């Protein structure tokens, strides 16, 4: 049975009453598909969230608030979205590919009898206007195109954060509808107990436009004070190589790379990072790469758009001064 649905849905993730900005990236991605098929975009928001109405003036023809969900439990979220999708019958559903998307999208796919393409860096349509997901595999060394053959259910895809720009407020006026989320299929098997916010609420690397990362070349944990100072001057988030994380210089959540996190900032500044393939796999699709390294021949210096040879302990302080001067 073919997919008879219509329209592109985006699932807007919320955290403790706040809408995450990836929702606006998903709206941009959804519009690119919907416009080619003459369809509209619906934003499904999990729980009543601050800022959710903003989606209705940024390109979503409809905002559907699923109420009564509580904090993020995989099965409850998937159950509520699946129930709404059965009622609303979209042709395509997009989610962001962070922990949330990886947790929920597969459950949705099984519940809705759908195909799921994961972690798209771009979405396309084939000649029959079916969804094709462009994604990276083998640590970013291979680009795959995956056709989502919708069966009876909608075609599903998760989209990598930062792959699409955020949709701006454009004066459109979508409707806002509230419905009670139906979580009965989850059978109450997951209980959300508590949340512990990060001690220092730094910019998260997953959603950062700019990242300054430090590696083994820092030599000791104090080096991250310098990295943080540069990050602050740049308005950037702080990343790290595995060597720096394994040395205990900085917590794991800052680790960039295949065993850490995949990032796609507009600017990635690698300081004292040699650029081994496992690190590159997590960041080489960044728009612009800057490398600061004593070794002009290391892979990171070769991959960089701007390669600065030198001791980071000399270059970074000079850089911070120059940035301050440039800002006036």
């Amino acid at each position, binding site marked *: 049975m073919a997919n008879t649905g219509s329209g592109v849905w985006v699932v807007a993730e919320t955290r403790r009453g706040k809408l995450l900005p990836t929702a606006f990236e998903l709206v941009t991605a959804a519009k690119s598909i919907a416009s080619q098929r003459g369809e509209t975009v619906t934003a499904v928001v999990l729980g009543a969230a601050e800022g959710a109405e903003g989606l209705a003036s940024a390109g979503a023809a409809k905002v559907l608030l699923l109420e009564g969900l509580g904090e993020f439990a995989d099965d409850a979220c998937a159950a509520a979205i699946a129930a709404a999708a059965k009622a609303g019958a979209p042709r395509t559903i997009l989610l962001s590919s962070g922990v949330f998307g990886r947790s929920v999208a597969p459950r949705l796919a099984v519940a809705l009898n759908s195909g799921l393409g994961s972690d798209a860096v771009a979405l396309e349509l084939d000649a029959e206007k079916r969804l094709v997901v462009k994604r990276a595999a083998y640590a970013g060394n291979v680009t795959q195109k995956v056709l989502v053959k919708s069966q009876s259910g909608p075609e599903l895809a998760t989209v990598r954060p930062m792959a699409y720009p955020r949709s701006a407020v454009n004066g459109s006026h979508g409707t806002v509808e509230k419905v009670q989320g139906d979580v009965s299929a989850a059978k109450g098997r997951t209980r959300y107990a508590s949340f512990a916010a990060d001690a220092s609420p730094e910019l998260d690397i997953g959603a950062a436009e700019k990242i300054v990362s430090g590696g083994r070349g820092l030599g000791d944990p104090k080096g991250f004070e310098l990295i943080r100072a540069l990050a602050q001057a740049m308005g950037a988030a702080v990343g790290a190589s595995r060597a720096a994380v394994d040395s205990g210089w900085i917590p794991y959540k800052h680790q960039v790379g295949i065993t850490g996190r995949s990032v796609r900032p507009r600017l990635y500044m690698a300081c004292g990072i040699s650029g081994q393939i496992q690190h590159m796999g997590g960041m080489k699709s960044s728009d612009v790469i800057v490398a600061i390294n004593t070794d002009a021949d290391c892979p990171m210096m070769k991959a960089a758009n*701007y390669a600065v040879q030198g001791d980071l302990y000399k270059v970074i302080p000079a850089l911070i001064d120059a940035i301050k001067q440039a800002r006036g």
Partner: protein
Amino acid sequence: MPIKIAVCVKRTPASTSVAIDAAGKVQTKGLPHGINPFDEYAVEEALRLKEKLGGTVTVVSAGEAEAEEVIRAAIALGCDDGVLLSDPAFAGSDGSVTASVLAAALRKAEAKLVLFGKETTDGASGQMPAFTAAWLDWPSVIGVRKVAAASEGELTVERLMEDGVDTLTLSLPAVVGVIKEINEPRLPSLKGKMAAKKAPVTKWTAADLGLDAAKLGAAGSPTEVVGLEPVPARPAGLVIAGATPEEKAKALVEKLKEAKFI
């Protein structure tokens, strides 16, 4: 109370520098392979849970006959036995269909707690834990950096999120995906290596699992890889010139200003 734990592992190429052949397929034959590095953390956590709760750990892998190597490698670390899911009918299955095979095997093996690593180094979708749980209709959680409490009936875990840490309690049976932060994997002992040679590895096919061949393999999968291309190396960039760190810093800031990063 003892508990039946299973850990799902995949045999993956040890290198991610792979070639694409004339037929447009990724060529991995002949490359050195091993257990997917992320899965080592899942194996370790399974062993720690067994040490705490008692019970057994079964290693489950879907793949070609060679996947038996990684099953035995996990047994050498202390797992009790293994199940190899191998059948030409499975070839070309996408993530969802592969998970349906794993789910059928886990049900047949009567597992109560199933562990996965974060993702594989080849496909890297990170979706197998949730897919498998969905087919089993069990609760699941991924991104787990700590098992805070475990009993026969439920599991309390810490999940690393982008903004902090969630604590959740799941009733068993359940599927858990772990991340590298959770533990430091052990090395195999000599005794373990000896045991691994003799340990039972059961082989199940689609027929053993009662699976419908029409829903397996490339033809039974709801997604299809329609294109593969190597990612071109980034073009050579600009070496920032300057006699001193200050000069280089100034020159770099000029470039960053032009690109509107400053």
